[in-house]
């Protein structure tokens, strides 16, 4: 049959503003979570990760928040720049080695 592409949510922000990208994960047994950035024609690029025994982790300009109660993950990007424009995926890992990716969010940064 014909496959239907996902209609990815899009977040448009002004350059310099903060961005918040959200993700709902599916498996309550997942204990490791990662945010990846994917630019057009490239592979997923690691941004930041968090283990389930934490609820917040900060990197350079990025912060990941984890709420296990509602199975929610967010990525905050401070002072968003044009180079941040990409598709952002969350991924979860429960057991074994398989990463389960979310659908993705398109981030568009307006100059």
């Amino acid at each position, binding site marked *: 049959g014909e496959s239907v592409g996902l209609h990815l949510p899009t977040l448009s922000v002004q350059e310099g503003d903060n961005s918040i990208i959200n993700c709902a994960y599916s498996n309550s047994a997942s204990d490791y979570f990662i945010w990846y950035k994917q630019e057009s024609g490239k592979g997923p690029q690691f941004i930041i990760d968090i283990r389930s025994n934490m609820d917040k982790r900060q990197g350079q300009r990025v912060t990941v928040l984890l709420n296990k109660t509602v199975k929610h993950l967010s990525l905050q990007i401070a002072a968003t720049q044009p180079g941040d424009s990409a598709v952002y995926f969350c991924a979860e890992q429960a057991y074994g080695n*398989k990463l389960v*990716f979310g659908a993705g969010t398109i981030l568009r940064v307006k100059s």
Partner: protein
Amino acid sequence: EPEVTQTPSHQVTQMGQEVILRCVPISNHLYFYWYRQILGQKVEFLVSFYNNEISEKSEIFDDQFSVERPDGSNFTLKIRSTKLEDSAMYFCASSLAGGSSHTQYFGPGTRLTVL
């Protein structure tokens, strides 16, 4: 900074033909993976490989697929008889160790087009 590399960047093949997609994982990594992404869809896990054996595979990874580490640096994905629905981006990834908390680093992908 070490990177995962993949060749070719784009492969066009006729339905029913065999294709081999190649990857060079990061040199000190021990776990290797293949994922695929059909256009406009999620990235999906295919297989993980450790110590010259498949450690985990998805339901997508049927008998048409195989993986191999033919030497100390390359990791390959073979599709024996390609179908139209195999058209996708195929990503190789590697990690230092397996299990959770070990980041998987992805290559740039090979775009496979089956005609």
